């Protein structure tokens, strides 16, 4: 058979790091957080996988996944409406002792039968908290070439404040590596060290058979966490190679970083770095082109389709269908889809979630270090 596809299936964990952004995930999950004007976080990894020839992708969801189901639909926009493979959303399986999975091991254990029945030789796994145009092809090639058991992608970054400051035990863990000749020799969990580290992106590739074996063993021992219980304990016996991603990426680690990462994309160099590669696909809304009317004044703005701007906007990320009324002034804001700013309102350092309305002449200001968040469907 002619095979233009990669010999790998993809698994995405859409709920990982939900705990970092409680505001944004009150009615959704990490993967469906709107980002960069017209996307959801999951679009980046999902499109990257598709663009690298991975056509069999499962999303193992834990909770709050209505918005994700709505966004992904049948997977058509990502070319994943396939007879073989395609998109596969796996909700928690209701059992007698229903228990939401805590770590990857339980999540994977719940789809073990599925994993066993697949044909692909490799499995790639990823979370959805990073907006990145990731080259899974290069990642896979590096893995095969090195002969590693497992390859993990990392970036050289400082540990983001958002994850560092979380101290409670329920928070998702993060991982940093010591690397020697490409091999991970030491793995730190929730390190508090300063400076640039080899920070894990939690993107993995390994053979499907190895994954099944490891999950079986870990599950039998009552282990929950893939990194803590499988990787960290077997650094001697498993050859875990590290793959450095040096391209652009945006991590969502808390509300501040969400704001900053959106703002960073106003810089053309960053926008190009994230989007000039293969296409990032997303749900189509059939909005009309954006319209600038009358005395609209716009500076340093990225806007999606469907916006109607009659007022002033400066340094803003405007999602699809945002309306800014006459005389309204919007500065340093991230306004999610269908936000309405009525005539004469003034906004600074605001993050508005979907369908928020700011009534006429309202004034609302946050600050650089503390943007004000307005939740879904609110009228201010």
């Amino acid at each position, binding site marked *: 058979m002619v095979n233009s596809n990669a010999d790998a299936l993809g698994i995405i964990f859409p709920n990982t790091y939900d705990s970092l952004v409680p505001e944004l995930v009150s009615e959704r999950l990490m993967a469906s957080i709107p980002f960069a*004007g017209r996307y959801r976080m999951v679009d980046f990894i999902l499109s990257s996988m598709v663009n690298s020839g991975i056509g069999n992708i499962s999303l193992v969801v834990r909770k709050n996944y209505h918005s994700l189901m709505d966004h992904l639909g049948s997977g058509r926009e990502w070319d994943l409406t396939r007879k073989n493979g395609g998109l596969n959303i796996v909700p928690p399986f209701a059992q007698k002792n229903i228990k939401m999975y805590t770590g990857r091991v339980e999540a994977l254990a719940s789809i073990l039968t599925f994993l066993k029945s697949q044909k692909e030789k490799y499995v790639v796994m990823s979370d959805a908290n990073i907006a990145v145009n990731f080259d899974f092809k290069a990642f896979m090639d590096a893995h095969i070439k090195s002969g590693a058991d497992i390859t993990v992608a990392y970036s050289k970054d400082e540990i983001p404040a958002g994850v560092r400051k979380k101290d409670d035990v329920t928070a998702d863990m993060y991982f940093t590596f010591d690397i020697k000749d490409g091999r991970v020799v030491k793995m730190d969990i929730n390190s508090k060290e300063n400076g640039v580290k080899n920070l894990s992106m939690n993107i993995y590739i390994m053979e499907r058979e190895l994954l099944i074996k490891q999950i079986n063993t870990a599950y039998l021992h009552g282990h929950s966490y893939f990194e803590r219980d499988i990787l960290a304990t077997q650094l001697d016996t498993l050859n875990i190679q590290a793959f450095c991603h040096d391209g652009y990426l945006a991590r969502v680690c808390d509300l501040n970083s969400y704001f900053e990462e959106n703002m960073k994309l106003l810089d053309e160099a960053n926008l190009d770095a994230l989007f000039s590669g293969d296409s990032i696909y997303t749900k189509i809304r059939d909005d009309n082109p954006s319209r600038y009317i009358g005395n609209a004044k716009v500076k340093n703005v990225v806007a999606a389709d469907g916006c109607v701007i009659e007022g002033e906007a400066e340094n803003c990320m405007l999602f699809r269908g945002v309306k800014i009324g006459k005389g309204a002034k919007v500065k340093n804001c991230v306004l999610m889809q269908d936000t309405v700013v009525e005539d004469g309102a003034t906004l600074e350092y605001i993050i508005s979630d979907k369908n928020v309305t700011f009534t006429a002449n309202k004034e609302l200001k946050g600050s650089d270090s503390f943007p004000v968040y307005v939740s879904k469907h609110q009228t201010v």
Partner: protein
Amino acid sequence: MAKEMIAMLLAGGQGSRLYALTQKLAKPAVPFGGKYRIIDFPLSNCVNSGIDTVGILTQYQPLVLNEYIGNGQPWDLDRLHGGVHVLPPYQQASGSDWYKGTANAIYQNISFIERYNPQYVIILSGDQICKQDYSDFLRFHKEKGAEFSVAVMEVPWDEASRFGLMVADENDKITEFQEKPKNPKSNLASMGIYIFNWDILKKYLVEDEADPNSENDFGNNIIPNLLRDGRNMYAYHFSGYWKDVGTISSLWEANMEVLDPEHSGINLFDENWKIYSRNSGMTGHRISSDAVVENCMITDGCRISGTVKHSILFAGVTVEPGAQVEDAVVMGGTTIKAGAVVKHCIVAENVVIGENAVVGAMPSDGEKGVATIGSGVYVGDNAKIGPNAMVSSNVKGGEEQW
């Protein structure tokens, strides 16, 4: 299951008066209004009116159109039974033929229509910008007990002689048809949109085909034959926005009217009557700190650093610093380099306008020409394109064309 009404969309038009824009694509595939193509309008009207089976008759330069239509999914026309079908002329046991005329195009696809066993067939034109509810037209057709209905627009009397005119009595029953008459007896212009009872249409198509002297055209042959036989023919009055965008100036004008929906009546922002299109999939547009945007429409993928006034920019247009764009229609993927001045013109897809080049000019002294640059053209630095120019091949730096 039989369909009540299916649509046949005539999309074979060459659009020769759009010359530079239709060199490589059929007129219905010409981009319009920032993110649409002309054919999006009749297709979206069909879907919004509840018609789920559409045959698109193509002939001239069909590649772009075929790819654009694809399986019809963007218009929700990917259906198990019905959906959208592109129908080029094909070879039959008795030989093959190009579509000789509008009626012949339908005649050659009688077997397609019969697969759906419809009661009514609506004939649509693929070169008009119009938002119309065809279900309302069908209701009229049924109420009148008509065998044939035609949608008509009232036009100013002094322009009436440019159109095919329907003369109708007080019950809207058509009594006479005048094709571009010197002395118009009516100001009801045919929009080229017809509803037929299928049995009647089939009968007249077969008859028409048997007539060796016929031009096989709806306006010239089928409608006069129906009149001759005293069929029940009615004129359905349509009063919404309608524009035949057959010329450069009317295409430009219609685009400009999109910028002013409050007055022109062409509202693309209607949530209840969405116009669907195949999406560019580009990321949001970016407007830099030095840019000026006034009264314009901008689509995904644009990068604006210059000045853009009263213009429509399609997906992926770049306007570099210092460039000026005014009263212009700039289609997808075009780059306007630093210092270039682009005014009162249509620039097709994937054009590069070089630095400090000048394209078109604002009207003055009764000179209202709309300069046109065809797709893929490279206009060199400092080149000058006059307001009446129609450019379809590269222009070297510094050259002038009028």
